[in-house]
């Protein structure tokens, strides 16, 4: 094996059967190197979300191979995948990102607390640091529902980073934000990527967001076209 973080070969994904069958991913190959900051581009319905979901181990491909950190993730059990996700993968979604009944800080430390069975002081400290870094020092104990859209996404980024994952998958993280908030979020992601070498894969429709990333991956007709 080489030193790539993510290795996807001949990936197929289809939904449904017979007449209703939709072939979404067709023979897709993709490699991500550690430390990459990549944008995932493509027309609506091209399969960006589907790919991110498979990379995030939330869904299994119909066929093909997918390994990360040298671990084959297409044959692992649900329990193994759960643990793997917790330790190595962070998510930022477009909607439904935060747990509504919890504060910003509680949301951020959730991935660690759920693994450790309680909210340890060390986790609280890291959570505060991350929120401060995201420019939310004055929103640490805010109920998550009272945050603005941009603030919510920054909390989501902080949470994705909580367990120091190797890979952060973001599905249109700025799709819901105005230009200024979107830039702010992208700026922070860029900083983290530079400072900590965390690998990001960010799907977007916005070319200006894509140009902030060092690599652009285009998907069309279910495969990577460039």
């Amino acid at each position, binding site marked *: 094996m080489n030193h790539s973080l993510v290795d996807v070969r001949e990936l197929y994904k289809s939904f449904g059967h017979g007449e209703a069958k939709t072939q979404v991913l067709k023979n897709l190959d993709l490699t991500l190197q550690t430390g990459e900051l990549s944008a995932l581009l493509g027309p609506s319905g091209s399969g960006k979300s589907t790919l991110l979901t498979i990379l995030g181990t939330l869904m299994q491909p119909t066929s093909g191979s997918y390994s990360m950190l040298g671990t084959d993730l297409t044959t692992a059990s649900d329990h193994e995948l759960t643990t793997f996700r917790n330790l190595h993968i962070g998510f930022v979604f477009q909607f*439904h990102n935060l747990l509504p009944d919890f504060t910003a800080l509680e949301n951020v430390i959730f*991935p660690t607390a759920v693994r450790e069975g309680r909210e340890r002081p060390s986790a609280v400290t890291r959570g505060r640091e991350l929120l401060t870094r995201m420019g939310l020092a004055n929103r640490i104990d805010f109920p998550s529902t009272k945050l603005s859209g941009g603030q919510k996404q920054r909390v989501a980024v902080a949470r994705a980073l909580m367990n120091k994952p190797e890979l952060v998958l973001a599905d249109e993280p700025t799709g819901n934000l105005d230009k200024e908030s979107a830039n702010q979020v992208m700026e922070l992601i860029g900083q983290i990527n530079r400072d900590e070498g965390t690998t990001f894969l960010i799907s977007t429709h916005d070319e200006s967001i894509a140009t902030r990333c060092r690599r652009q991956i285009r998907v069309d007709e279910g495969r990577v076209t460039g």
Partner: protein
Amino acid sequence: MLYAIKIAVRYLTANKAQTSLLVFGVAVGVFIFIFMSALIGGLAEFIMARTAGDLSHVTIEAESQDPPLLIPSPAETILLVQQKDSTRTAQLSTIDAFIPIMEALPGVLATSQQITGGGFLKHGALARQVSVTGLEPDKVSAIVNLKSYLIEGSAELGTGTILIGKTLAEDMSFRLGQTVRLQADTGIDASLIVSGIFETGSGGYDRRQAYISLATARTLFAMPQGVSKVEIKLTDLYDAAATAARIEAVTGLPATPWTENAAQLLDALKAQGQTGLLLKTFALVTIIIGVASALLLSTYRRRPEIGIMRAMGTPRSFVIFVFVSQGAIIGLVGGLLGAAIGYLVLLMFPTREEFRPGNLPIDITQGAYGIAILLTTIGAIAASILPARSASRVDPVTAIGQ
């Protein structure tokens, strides 16, 4: 799993109105459970106290010799039955030696030697048939608690005194201290002073029963020694059959437990207990359905969140624990609340001691509070299993993708 409990509590407190309503619903179910327990328990105890309480729990009675039945030979057609001699009372002549033995048996509270017979109470032109019981003077209240039923005079029996029921006294216009004449079936009669009047509330007793001292009874019924029967009171009236068997084994005397003649009463109590059980089961089932449906609704509402949790590497078991904890908390809090309400409501009813016929005989001590809380908590946990499993099976992709 402190963290799962924290999340469970957070979920419950997030929607205070809904949770309060749910907890209150559970509490109402628990209240019904406790109220039924106290009522059925109190009722059973009350009926027992009223009936079996004044009964002899084990009775040793001399076997009256049945008159011989002359079985006709096939050739003849005459059937001859000899009339039982009613004046000759059967007697236990050798009882004295057995009394200390019986009193030493475990569970035996008291024994009472009695001479019983019939007679007429006369006053001027009036006469009433009475059942007469001769009691040992120091054991007047050993079986029937005469002392507690006394409305006039004293419950002491001396030579030449008689205790009679209220109805009888009214019928004959007897008053306390009056001298009356008692003629026994044996033909012997005696002049006795009315030293007390009782009212048991039981018609037959108050109209027909008279008590005299054992010594007076010996004279009247011509029994210089022995007694007609021995009545025995036990510490536990449910132990009567076993104790009767033991007495028979030890003494060889025919001992009959009260239960032998009280099958109807026992059946009624059993039926009553089963009705109570049924109502309590319904209360529990209602609690379980209520909790299950509320939690199921909650898992549905929280699908996106559960999806996010799963995406962040939350094990299914953790999700299950969060929802089962919610069930347990609802059950426990609802159970405690219901028990508290139940206790306070039962406090408003008269206590066992103050109880009078006509009120609901509710016994606050039989509320079964602990069992109610325990069963409710277990029931609520059971009710949460289905919602918890459904929550743990939420597919993060569809839940978040909405």
